[in-house]
């Protein structure tokens, strides 16, 4: 179960994620990003309500980061402690901008 709320205007996009980002739900986020990122220069992911992330979720974040590196910036806000720890273990805190 992953709930994605998205809001995009004037080249800025905000995605608020709620629930689990795993093998089952990662394709949903991938699809949502694909539909939205065209022309976006600033992508913000609000992680406050994200409870769980597995490598499948990290892969989608990595792909998004790579894409945004080409067309603008991406940042993650309100990242919870448990999720942050996963980023640290995998070195993702070095490649993602976590605020």
């Amino acid at each position: 179960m992953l709930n994605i709320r998205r809001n995009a205007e004037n080249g800025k996009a905000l995605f608020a994620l709620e629930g689990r980002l795993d093998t089952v739900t990662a394709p949903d986020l991938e699809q949502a990003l694909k539909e939205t990122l065209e022309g976006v220069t600033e992508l913000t992911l609000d992680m406050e309500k994200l409870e769980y992330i597995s490598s499948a979720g990290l892969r989608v974040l990595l792909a998004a980061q790579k894409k945004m590196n080409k067309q603008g910036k991406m940042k993650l806000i309100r990242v919870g402690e448990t999720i942050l720890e996963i980023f640290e273990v995998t070195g993702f805190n070095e490649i993602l901008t976590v605020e």
Partner: protein
Amino acid sequence: MGTRQIIVPLSGRIDSGNAAATERQILEQLGPGEAVSPVLDAEKLEYISSAGLRVILHLKKRNPGLRITNVSSQVYEILEMTGFTEMMPVEKAWKVVSVEGCEVIGEGFKGRVYRIDRDTVVKTYKNADALEEIRHEREVARLALILGVPTAISYDVVRVGDSYGSVFELLNARSFAKILAEEPERMDWCVKEYVDLLKKVHSIVVPRGKLPSGKEQALIFVRRVKECLPEGYGDKLERMVQEIPESDHMIHGDYHTKNIVLSGDEVLLIDMDTLAVGDPIFELEQMYNSYLGFSAYNPQIVKDFQGFDRETAEAFWKKSLRAYLNTADEGKAEAAEERIRCISYADLIDWKRRYSDLADEEDRETLALWTRELIRLLDKVDSLDLRPFMEERAGGDELEVEASGGNLARVQAFVEECLKTAGCSLKTQMHIGVAVEEIFMNIAEYAYAPGKGSAIVRVEVSGSPAAAVITFIDRGTPYDPLARTDPDVSLPAEEREIGGLGVFMTKKLMDDVAYEYRDGQNILTLKKQL
């Protein structure tokens, strides 16, 4: 204390037209000074506007002990909507119910249960001031339901004669006591359902401060009982109770076969007023008493109370205890029972001394018997820790499913359920979740490709502090996922590879990960301290 209670009747409508005058009248009736607890009797109050509510606010500011009683449902709705019911005690006007001539369908220590119409029952209380008790029971029953205990909740409180009652929907239900009395051949089924529900209740972690502590309650009666024991015995018992660790896990507090009912195919737990938190021993001691302790001197007591004889009670208790401890080892079960009975007898002795004047020969003999037994046990027992006698289920819990991505949620739910009793943190739960996902998805995607096959997931929790061992077994292509080189996690995004990350995370998040290929099976084992 020291405040005077003054009852002020309110009537008709209070709105902007008469609010100021009403306030003056009320203040006159209250007189000067703050040492007054006003009770606004709203029996005849039909309507109150915001101007009227402000009058109440002023009064509340002047006399913080303000209460409102006898509030009709229309006015209650206004008070509830505006938050007044949170700010001050507001008591609804109770519907009056007569139970005269109604069928009595149950009788307990505290009161009777009457059937007032086809689908409604009222549980009445003997004591005139039962309101607090009813409120408490409603509140804890609601809490239990929210936390996942299948139970019945009363939906209204009514006035019955001089006391109060709570209204329940009539469940088309049979108690386990009745089932055991009428269909003794269902004993083993009853034991299983009874113990499954008990374990479920005990697995629930209750937020701090919501329920009383079973240990505190036991310490109270243990201290009172000290004076009937020889020098040193009481201190030893108190010390052993003191040493039982505090626990946030729920206990029911009166878990016997009349409080477990079968409604359709659902097993429900009722009578929630004794709900507490604590070590399972505080539940088991009362269970022992329900079946054997109370009737130790006079076997007829259990027959009168439960409806089945003492032999049945003993068999049911013994089977249930063994099922609860997960042990078939008689020595262990008996040793656990001795520890449990130390608290059981103290509880019984205290209860008898408080509720009986001991004028009766039988009461005196019973008390003497319990005291002798307690002293004998205290000579033998040195700890009340039950953990040494509880065994994990042989081989742990196991699930076999088709190895496919569609089954991931099922596997995750299964593992979570197994870990629930161990009470592990959300963080550890997530770490285990990540590892389980990676390993199971690996099997699902590669082990049998392009064909299909099954995977076994086994969870064992053991030790203290508890550790989980999760084993994945498949009969697919031999493959050691751990042999893969770890990805370089220091590379920038552009150079990062997507593969290998899952296994790497698993290694990092678990305390130990091991692989072996044996008898045609890939066996991957995860270990994690909980």
